[in-house]
């Protein structure tokens, strides 16, 4: 059974003081339905990703909330949680639910409302994705965890601080034309280097922001896909786990769960990393984009920076990455994985804000915490891969 994505929509990424998570989820869902050209009554089930709505707004039971607000009761609604990978987790569950034969049309969504609480509370809530007993109790933050990976990587492979700044510079440049991006301004090496230190060596412009936002996509079985124009086919879907705490990993300079999820997705899709035309990778902090290049097989170990120095991951280069600006321009944690898939969908059907010419195969990579959960999805303009 092949499964396709036939529409998607997202809210603007930002600080939405006048909108609740209900408002944001409903807006994203309505946009996705409109984009697919179907109505709410066509949806048979909903999977929604949210990381920590309980900590952020005191609201759990997001599946019921979303279908209630959208007027879609009584369809089944399920919340999926895998920290910052909750969105792709919901997507994968929707994909598997269709493959099981149970449904033909399913919505996968994600949302997070992060700005209702104060900064230190939000940082603490996000640390719920780490080890509470030893990482959080040491006063660690997610910027701190990725800072330790950055420092270890810089020492091992000789990456300079200025070279690390090439990640936000590229992603801010890509986001300039994205009307949904939280920020639309270019940045220079000097601006990155002069931005406030958050967790040495990471600075403000290396860090994804605190964001409110929601995103939704419509998945359909091949039985009904012919009713839709421009379906984007799921060629491969991989998921892997690792230790919750960073200190339990053998290496600080790679994310093995990303590599394993990617290997599964590549094998299922029957494509190699060299065949990817466009990718969205999880650049929650600058160093993670470079680790992702290596974990996903786009570059050899220690050579990830070359793709930035040679501008290969810019639009116009060999393998454009984060063409919508990536997580740097909005990271509503539960929605991020879906937002990435929407960008790949736009690229493959040719209506992206910054279009990669002739893109036919795309990849989306989303991780939770410091890499304890990782998901990789591969998409194509034509059906393919092994889907039993």
């Amino acid at each position, binding site marked *: 059974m092949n499964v396709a994505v036939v529409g998607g929509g997202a809210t603007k990424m930002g600080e939405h003081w006048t909108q609740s998570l209900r408002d944001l989820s409903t807006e994203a869902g309505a946009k996705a339905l409109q984009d697919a050209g179907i109505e709410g009554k066509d949806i048979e089930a909903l999977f929604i990703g949210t990381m920590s709505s309980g*900590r952020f707004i005191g609201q759990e039971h997001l599946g019921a909330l979303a279908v209630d607000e959208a007027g879609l009761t009584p369809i089944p609604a399920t919340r999926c949680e895998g920290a910052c990978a909750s969105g792709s987790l919901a997507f994968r569950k929707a994909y598997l639910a269709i493959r099981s034969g149970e449904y033909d049309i399913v919505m996968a969504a994600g949302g997070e409302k992060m700005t209702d609480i*104060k*900064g*230190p*509370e939000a*940082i*603490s*809530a996000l*640390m719920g994705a780490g*080890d*509470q*007993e*030893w*990482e*959080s*109790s*040491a*006063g*660690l*933050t997610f*910027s*701190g965890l990725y*800072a*330790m*990976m950055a*420092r*270890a990587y810089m*020492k091992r492979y000789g990456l300079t601080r200025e070279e690390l700044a090439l990640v936000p510079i590229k992603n801010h440049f890509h986001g300039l034309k994205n009307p949904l991006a939280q920020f639309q301004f270019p940045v220079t090496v000097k601006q990155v280097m002069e931005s*406030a*230190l*958050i*967790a*040495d*060596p*990471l600075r403000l412009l290396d860090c994804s922001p605190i964001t409110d936002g929601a995103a939704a996509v419509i998945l359909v079985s091949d039985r009904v896909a012919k009713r839709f124009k421009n379906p984007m086919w799921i060629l491969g879907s991989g998921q892997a786990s690792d230790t919750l*705490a*960073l*200190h*339990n990993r053998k290496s*600080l300079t790679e994310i093995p769960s990303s590599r394993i999820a990617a290997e599964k997705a590549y094998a299922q899709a029957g494509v190699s990393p060299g065949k990817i035309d466009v990718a969205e990778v999880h650049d929650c902090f600058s160093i993670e984009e470079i680790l992702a290049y290596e974990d996903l097989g786009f570059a050899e170990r220690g050579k990830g920076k070359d793709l930035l120095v040679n501008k290969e991951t810019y639009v116009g280069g060999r393998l454009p990455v984060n063409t919508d600006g990536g997580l740097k321009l909005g990271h509503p944690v539960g929605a991020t994985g879906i937002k990435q898939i929407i960008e790949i969908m736009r690229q493959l059907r040719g209506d992206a804000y910054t279009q990669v010419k002739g893109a036919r195969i795309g990849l989306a990579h989303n991780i939770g915490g410091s890499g304890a959960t990782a998901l990789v999805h591969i998409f194509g303009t034509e059906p393919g891969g092994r889907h039993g």
Partner: protein
Amino acid sequence: MVESVPLSWRLQRQRYNLIGTRCATCDERFFPPRNFCPSCRRKGKIEPFQFSGRGSVESFTVIRVAPSGFESQTPYAVGIIKLDEGTSISGQIVGDVTRVEMGKRVRPVFRRIREDGKEGVIHYGVKWALEG
């Protein structure tokens, strides 16, 4: 977030005395303690293991923007400490943050970890200090 009293109490043996575990079957050491050996699985035999707490800085950062409960301590250094007896653990490194370097030797010290507000509990536990 406020750390609960039962959680803090449960972790006393680990946090105050650095008692972890060891698998007698494969000799792998666990800190924080695991009650199940991921390598040996059912064949594993878990027993308590006393760590000295001495080790070296595997990597570190200096936190300048802190989570709730730690705002008054910034800037503070946190590292991954590679323990001499095997395995690694996250912990704060006390003292001058500009002196911390990867590879430097550290020893454990008993310190106040956090306070939950003026009326709340004061949590104690292990931090690390640079040797010499």
